[in-house]
């Protein structure tokens, strides 16, 4: 599995994007009130990194080999602990300068990574070779635009920052995203196991 992992994951892109997350969170930690949109942008990158790692450019060949889809998904999902670990490290280092909602921020990252993993696994199971590229092209800029524009902050705070914002609703939304992603991922993996 390690050999497959080393060769299959786009490491240069993964490391570059992870480095950008660290840079963005450094700016957020330095000037939280001004730079907060970069927190949502970094969360978009977490989904992007997970999605890019799910692509199988040689799917036409690889899908005919004995290794089942779930095995390859499990190997490629190794980027998730890497990127979540980086995120948590950023949060811990900057903890004193960020709003006191550590576990909420962890939930946001888990939701983003889970969503990317669920969508790309589902589409890989349907025979799409590179679902990550298309998904990342949507989720990264959309997260960035939502973080900048902050529409409907009263009704649906996606990336809350101020104490007056509705953190409870936001927590519910992110918990629903994470749970829904886990359900979709489980369904896709069970489907893959049955096929195998």
């Amino acid at each position, binding site marked *: 599995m390690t050999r497959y992992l080393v060769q299959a994951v*786009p490491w240069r*892109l993964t490391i*570059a*994007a992870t480095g*950008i997350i660290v*840079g*963005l969170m450094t*700016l957020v930690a330095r*000037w939280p009130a*001004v*730079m907060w*949109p*970069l927190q949502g*942008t970094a969360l*978009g*990158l977490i989904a*992007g990194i997970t999605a*890019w790692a799910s*692509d199988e450019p040689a799917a036409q060949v690889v899908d005919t080999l004995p290794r089942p889809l779930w095995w390859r998904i499990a190997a490629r999902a190794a980027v998730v602990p890497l990127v979540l670990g980086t995120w948590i490290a950023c949060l811990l280092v900057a903890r004193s300068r960020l709003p006191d909602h550590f576990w909420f921020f962890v939930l946001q990252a888990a939701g983003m990574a889970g969503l990317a993993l669920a969508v790309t696994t589902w589409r890989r199971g349907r025979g799409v070779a590179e679902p990550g*590229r298309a998904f*990342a*092209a*949507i989720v*990264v*800029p*959309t997260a*960035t*635009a*939502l973080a*900048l*524009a902050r*529409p*409907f902050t009263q009704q649906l705070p996606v990336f809350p920052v101020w104490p007056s914002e509705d953190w409870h609703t936001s927590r519910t939304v992110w918990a629903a995203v994470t749970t829904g992603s886990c359900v979709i991922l489980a369904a896709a993996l069970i489907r893959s196991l049955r096929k195998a």
Partner: protein
Amino acid sequence: MTTTATTARTGSALGQLTAMELRRYATHPLFIIGVLLTVATTVGRPDQPSSGFFNAIVPAAGLGILGLVAMAAQTRKAATLNRAAGVTPVPERVQTAALALTALLPFTVGLLWVAWAMWAQHHWPVPDNGFPFGPAGDGWTFAALLGEGAFSALGGPLLGIVVGRYLPQRGTAPIVAVLLVAVAIVFQGIFEPLRSVRVIMPFTYWGGPIGVEGDDMRMLLLSGSPGWWAAYLGCLCGLAVVAALWHDPSARTPALRLVGGALFVAAVVTCLLAMFTGVEHTLVNPLPSGA
């Protein structure tokens, strides 16, 4: 006669390609999300202390940033289709020109947003302690909104064509978008040492509740000339088209070189004028934010 026939054919190919690319762009999920976000800002009364001014970030992000990634994907797809076709039916430069004309669609949406923002400014005037204030008249307001709301909507997709042509690798366009946002936030005018040079960025603010000692929401009006800044952004958009066309070796004619050179010189001059003319230094609204 042959030249006339070839020109007519190229013209007709450009028209057909533009129509096709426009249809593809209009139905791209990122464009639809951007339009919905932009339209959402026009529903109801805007932020009271600045009317629609602070909403300019929405078309810039929704049509510009999303447009960058959408257009890069569309450019890459067009190049892939051309490669798959083997002998290309039209030169790359015609395809690039069609994509550049397609960018007029988000620009039009941006212009409509600017028209709404100008109307909102008159319909719901900002209070005396709001923004803009003092020397910022209608012309100043229009130029700033044009640059922030409309030229961002044009420049993002045009930059997307450049990225799609030169850097078609996986993940490049979203990462360019993220880096652009990070740099633009640093240059938005919050940090005093960067205020005069902030106009080099394709998006920046011209004031707002930046605050002073003792009143952290006090409205400031930042230095520079938004009119020249809008002209500078127009030059940047032109340079993006030239750079995208340059990717096709057959398009590298002396005329294109001349246009590129002229636009570069104009961009430098207008940027310097945006920096050193207009409002001389940061102005503080004489009325406190809570008044």
